[in-house]
């Protein structure tokens, strides 16, 4: 199961890198969203994939016998998804405000905060 997931992570990372190299702010943020998924999947894979049993302790036992799915990566990924969602939501609103106030979503045209260009 690891190999397809790793290939998927690689594909997502490549797509995200391509998107993030764009000068368009919206594409950059889409790239961020895709890269976030790639990273979350790698946390998931890092916890080793087990398909045998859910991580539930039976009522009459103290521990689980045999192999079981690792619950920790799921908790980590869940946290990372929530945080990533919050950041993305803020960034999208910021992009919208930037479009309204600055009239562009192209990062190379955003020069308001830069020092004025030297007159030659």
């Amino acid at each position: 199961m690891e190999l397809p997931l790793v290939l998927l992570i690689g594909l997502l990372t490549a797509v995200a890198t391509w998107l993030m190299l764009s000068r368009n702010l919206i594409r950059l943020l889409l790239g961020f969203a895709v890269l976030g998924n790639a990273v979350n999947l790698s946390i998931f894979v890092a916890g080793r994939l087990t398909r045998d049993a859910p991580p539930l302790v039976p009522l009459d036992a103290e521990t689980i016998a045999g192999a079981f799915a690792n619950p920790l990566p799921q908790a980590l990924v869940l946290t990372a998804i929530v945080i990533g969602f919050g950041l993305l939501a803020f960034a999208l609103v910021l992009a919208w405000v930037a479009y309204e106030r600055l009239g562009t979503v192209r990062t190379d045209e955003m020069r308001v905060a830069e020092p004025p260009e030297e007159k030659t």
Partner: protein
Amino acid sequence: MIGGWLAAFVLIAPMVSAGATTLAHATPRLQARLSLVGAFVLLAVSVALLVVVLRDGMVVLQSGNWAAPFGITFAVDNLGAVMTVIAAITGAACLTFGLGETGEAERRAWFHPLSHVLLVGVCGAFLTGDLFNLYVWFEVMLIASFGLMTVGGTKAQIDGAVKYVALNLVATLIFLLAIALIYGLTGTLNFADIARSVPAVSNVGLLTAAATLLMAAFGMKAAVFPLFFWLPAAYHTPLVSVSAVFAGLLTKVGVYALIRAFTLLFTHDPEWTHTLLLWVAGLTMVTGVLGAAAQSEMRRILSWHIISQIGYMVMGLALATPLGLIGSVFYLVHHIIVKANLFLIAGVAARLTGSMELKRIGGLYRSAPWLGVLFFIPAFSLAGFPPLSGFWAKLVLVRAALEIGSWWIAAAALVTGLLTIYSMTKIWAEAFWKPHPAGEAAARPLAEAPAAMLAPIAALAAGTVVIGLFAQPFYVVAEGAAQQLLDPASYIAAVLGGAR
């Protein structure tokens, strides 16, 4: 036991302040009072925590009483406690300054609640003993800083915020990827447990790759060469009190995380990691100070100087000798106070003369000579003049470099100090000495600045002088912190106990 409670209260205090100031947002006066009370309560609690840590040694708090490494651990050593106190001082100073600066509109835009949320994140990052928890605190800090950056909503702020947000989002994902790799290799996220497991990891190459990713993520937060471009693009745009908090604290959280990671976690391959850090330190110093020389806006000059000063702190870490780490810790303390103060002074100077742009202002020496004195102290401390605090910090670092024969880094540090004087003299000559281009009356006297703006500046300047004149106790604390940093075994024992 009391230490554990204090550590918890360091986090609870700003959380409560954030909540209270949010609820009071409709009544600005009450909100400001609650905010100030909250800031000083945080200061009191963090000082108490530092006293306990210095007296009894490391404070470890296992949240929910889940034994490490299963629960989330908070582990406070000298460095963490010192950083918390400095964060609280900066928070209190900048919130006080904010009272004089923010108008009605900005207060409604959540200046106070967001500042306290930022302090929660910063303090949490200093106290935590868990890598994933550190990530969460970083994000708390980051989202609050995004909000603060745009308080006011001017075009320049939106522009600066776009660059700040974009690059920090990337840093976040790099950090998360490093966490994934480290978790996959060691099976744990607790600092102490990772430190214990690292020597047993067989795939050293991947481990070093993960460490380097972590270095990149923290380096981006700390604004080291070549990852600093978001900083000068953004730091001159927000409110002065906001940019002073950012200048004092945010990059230093990155430096703190670098110090923690490369003393406690990854000392397995210093040939690669610490050599890389040393190069990064040298290049950061020099590019930062050269970048500053090309600027003509006060806060942009100071922003580039943040970068060059980060180089000094990383340099002490990269040398990895006791003296080097003492220098780094001392430098952190000195720098946060000095840098926040310089931003605040720039704010007052702009208030009195009408602009941050050096070409458009002047005449301050005639109209407000005491502001000149207040500027002189942190500016020359930044450049490293004796007997101010920066002199001791630089002395220790340069000596540490000479001791192990790293001549070029010592030379870079000294040249950077010299060029820092150039920038500070430029601000002095342009803003203070030169007559105001719009006539003498355009530079207002100091009495026209609100007392809420001047009090924190005077207090921070006094702090700089005290650290300079009575450096010994601060040195001793830094020495204790460095000793703990160089002895990971005691950290591991304190967190995990002798049992496992």
